[in-house]
């Protein structure tokens, strides 16, 4: 069952989705399998043998009437990004299309405070809302066949970080060495819905050092990136 709050990306809907998710998990009705908060709706998976659609709907409606108005603040992260030419495949094009210098694009990308409004489509992949409105762009058509792991890219009103090499259609600004997903971690995704993310720029040498440290396990992203 899908509880929809808006047909657009809107901050009120994001907050309502999160509040309903929290309220539903607190209510913990028998037969609830799992929920998935996304940008404007809450997907509720339930076992029809134990929780009927009628009862679930009634429960969601009553919870939705009394949603807590407090915004839930997630953990805060500072994730370093290398914006150098080798990684910033679309930076020049983005700058040209926006009539800005490349430095200006990077400055605006670093200047924003992002919220992970959802984590999905791939393990650990965050949809970061809060992109500077001056950087809003459509996805690339056609998408790239393979985008390297760690790629930091923007599209629409969002920024994201690809946890693993996958096909992708977003506009690539840089690359981060920070691993985002590991099933061996207690929380397998570094980022959870609601977390606050900022970026900082770093030179190539630091990128290489961090990548090596994360690779051999001497560095942990939970420590390196805690803001």
């Amino acid at each position, binding site marked *: 069952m899908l509880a929809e709050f808006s047909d657009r990306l809107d901050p009120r809907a994001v907050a309502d989705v999160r509040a309903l998710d929290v309220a539903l998990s607190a209510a913990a009705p028998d037969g609830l399998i*799992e929920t998935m908060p*996304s940008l404007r709706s809450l997907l509720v998976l339930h076992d029809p043998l134990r929780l009927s659609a009628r009862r679930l709907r009634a429960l969601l409606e009553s919870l939705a009437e009394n949603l807590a108005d407090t915004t839930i603040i997630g953990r805060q992260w500072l994730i370093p990004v290398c914006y150098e030419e080798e990684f910033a495949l679309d930076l020049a094009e983005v700058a040209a299309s926006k009539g800005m210098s490349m430095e200006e694009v990077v400055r605006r990308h670093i200047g924003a405070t992002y919220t992970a409004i959802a984590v999905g*489509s791939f*393990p650990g992949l965050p949809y970061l809302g809060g992109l500077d409105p001056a950087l809003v762009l459509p996805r690339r058509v056609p998408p790239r066949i393979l985008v390297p792991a760690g790629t930091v890219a923007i599209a629409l009103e969002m920024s994201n970080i690809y946890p693993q090499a996958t096909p992708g259609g977003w506009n690539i600004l840089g690359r981060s060495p920070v691993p985002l997903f590991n099933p061996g971690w207690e929380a397998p995704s570094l980022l959870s819905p609601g977390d606050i993310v900022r970026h900082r720029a770093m030179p190539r040498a630091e990128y290489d050092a961090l990548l090596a440290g994360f690779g051999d396990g001497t560095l942990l992203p939970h420590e390196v990136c805690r803001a």
Partner: protein
Amino acid sequence: MSLRIIDPGLFSTIQDLGRVGYQRIGVPPSGALDTLSLRMGNALLGQAQGMAGLEMCRVGVRLVVECARLRFCITGADGTATLDGKPLAPWRSHTARAGQELHIGRIRGGAAYLCVQGGFALAPVLGSLSTYTRAGLGGFEGRRLDGGDLLPLALAEAPAGPERLLPHPVPAERSRPLRVLLGPHAEMFTEAAIRTLLSEAYQVTHNADRLGIRLQGTPLEHAGAKEIVSDGNNTGCMQVPGDGQPILLMPDRQTAGGYPKIATVITADLHRLGQVLPGSQLRFEAVAPEQAEMVAWQLERTIAASIGSIQDLA
């Protein structure tokens, strides 16, 4: 004590009933395409229905048994299984000795399952043994099997005892339409599109795998926008991209998607999606949620009766 894979078949992966609770961080459930066949296989071996088995699509494995005594069964689509060249009957358990060669050749359906008594000695990842190959998670090294793999068994020697037979498998109902709930985005389609979906046949294309089944037929027309702000997917939902050709999402699907979803296959019919074949025709019938729940109850009763019919062979 293991199964030594000589030929891995086309796409053979370890699957259980799926990984629950991680969709919110981008991890789809994975799990058996045909959960019913996996459950029945485990029931035949007298073990928990949700234990992991080896799922094989289109062409099965050839392997050598490397343990003292293996009790196993093969369920799901019919195949041409042999043990040292001798045909094996489906829907019953069998015992193999060290060195024997088990071959499951062409599979005449979507997926077949090899269940072994005691299961496989593999560590769960995020609470499940299911393989999610796209992210390299779970199962055997996070991937499909390859020639030369040694698939570890939990039991070195299956306990002695009579073989077991399932005389009344749950009927496959291949010709019955798939029952769907309309929505969650049915209102984003024209009334004509809804009528078309519920009256015409859609052909299963060759683009059908553990991620999704692409269908082909009369295009389903969007009433307005052809895309949505992404929201959560579930297994069995039918998303319709701009070209109007529907895609049924399967257990390895993305967790969220940006195309409107016109309808969702009911829980009790999901296992049938695991047995559809490219080139075949699918029809859809809309039901109300109450009806979907009744059908789910009926299916569980049928399964319980079928399991109750399992008998020892002399």
